[in-house]
């Protein structure tokens, strides 16, 4: 959130909170009739999907995860150059025989025969995981929803592999994990995003154009 505010400020758009200090609402001094909502990252996708907001600043990963038909519901207007994170498939580094999704597919059946269950994949990116795995032709797995400390789940035994975000890969390495050679699902960053579901009047359209042109200069 701070980075979004900084970026807007550099573009000459000063976001100010309204009401008391803990408020979740704000306004932009330079733009008339504009409300700013400070909400959690996952809620932003929902606001855009349902049209409760016209534009938002959020990670591409959260949009693609939270809105199954995102292509028809929202537009990615502009990548903003911060909030970089890769969504990756990571396996225990000790799996010396596995480097690709195809390798994983090949050992799945054998794993099931040995352990009486499919591979468990811990992630909070259920939709991205399903789509990516299905494109790779890998279907013999089960998802374990994980909302925190995902990288610890293979060591603790909750899961066998994970799909998670990483910036430097250091946390993954510290947890004995390695990214598959073809395991980068998405290179994400913060984006300026607009909603198709919101009601667009000439005035709101004008505000969006103003934001875009200020961000471009």
């Amino acid at each position: 959130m701070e980075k979004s505010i900084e970026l807007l400020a550099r573009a000459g758009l000063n976001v100010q909170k309204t009401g008391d200090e803990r408020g979740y609402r704000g306004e932009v001094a330079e733009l008339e009739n504009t409300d700013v909502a400070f909400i959690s990252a996952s809620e932003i996708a929902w606001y855009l999907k349902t049209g409760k907001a016209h534009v938002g600043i959020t990670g591409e990963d959260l949009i693609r995860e939270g809105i199954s038909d995102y292509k028809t519901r929202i537009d990615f207007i502009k990548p903003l150059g911060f909030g970089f994170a890769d969504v990756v498939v990571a396996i225990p580094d000790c799996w010396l025989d596995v480097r690709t999704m195809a390798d994983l597919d090949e050992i799945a059946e054998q794993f099931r025969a040995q352990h009486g269950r499919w591979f468990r994949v811990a992630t909070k990116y259920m939709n991205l995981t399903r789509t990516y795995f299905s494109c790779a032709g890998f279907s013999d797995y089960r998802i374990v929803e994980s909302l925190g400390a995902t990288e610890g789940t293979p060591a603790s035994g909750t899961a066998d592999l994970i799909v998670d975000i990483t910036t430097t890969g250091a946390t993954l390495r510290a947890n004995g994990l390695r990214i598959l050679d073809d395991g980068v699902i998405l290179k994400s960053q913060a984006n300026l995003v607009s909603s198709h579901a919101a009601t667009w009047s000439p005035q709101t359209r004008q505000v969006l154009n103003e934001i875009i042109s200020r961000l471009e200069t």
Partner: protein
Amino acid sequence: MVAETARQFEALEAQAQTLMGVFTAAGHQSVAPAIIQPADVYLDVIGEALRSRSYVFTDAEGEELCLRPDLTVPTCRLHLERGENGDPNGLYCYNGTAFRFQPTGATSAHPREFRQAGIEAFGQEDREKAEAEILALTIEALHKVGLKEWQLHFGDLGLFRAILNSAPMPKRWRNRLLHQFWRPEAFRAELKRLTKAPADKTQTLPEELAKKLVGVEEQEATAIVTKYLEDKNIELIGARTASEIASNMLAILADVNADPLSEKTARLIEGYIEISGPARAAGARLKDLMRDEGVDISKALDAYHRRLQLFSEAGINSSNADFSAEFGRTLEYYSGFVFEIEAPTLGPDSPIAGGGRYDGLLRMCGASEDIPALGAAIHTERLLSVVKSEES
């Protein structure tokens, strides 16, 4: 979605009564399996893809459930619950709602809620006879409600398995090709790899380790892998043991010494996959191909022809029937004969009926072994719309 009118509701009910009348007259017992099903069985059979295509939810106690995406698995479960103390045989029929999430939005041909009328037959030992009966009964029911024009498409995974078994290759290649059959592109890539350079795969293993593993037994391999991990300071985490990792590496390395798949075998498999056309002509081409490549799959071929013979005895005009070797590639859990019936007005993307053999499904639902099983389901809303448009 447009609400159903009272007239449509009545027409569907009347149609369902006729369909069920045909099924019960043939000895299928009418059942009403539960709409809410444990998600577990479906997740095992279909995989995680279930969640993106069905309504999966968690109840107040945390149990994962789903609205049934079809009535086949529920009928299998019902059969097992009833038959705990005995008879593996069962003939059932049903008419009920199934639910599917339509990611690009529901339409009248692909609604999220629709009524399936169908039949299942469990435990029948005479395979081709049972297949011809299920198909004939489905077509009889379709005719009875007034369908005139239709086309049958069918495939046979048993034939493909017979061809793979007839060709000389390591068992794990066979399994790999069978596993990839569902995905045509990956299948072609795999076939090419096995024909050209099966050893390619070993390049993914750490080189110094691979060298040490050549020609060693599994126990020694495990020790070598364990030492390698220790030397490299890699912690062994997760459920897979060093011996599992080592034994898979040995299997990969075995590909180095294996001869590539022969050109002849590749030609056989490719030749088979290309076969598609009217059922009789396809049968003749199958026979020619096997003769040209010197392969004996007479048992599977006999079954193919016997099935066609039984179709025609049951009054199914074989000029209405197309065989395609690739047909059934996208349908889960089918294990042998598989078919779809389409109406010319709706086309192949919206078949009005479909079914086939799934001998592994009852085991996946909890039976102690594979049980011969097959069935068919009719998409009743589609059927009604086709019959109405034929009338007008």
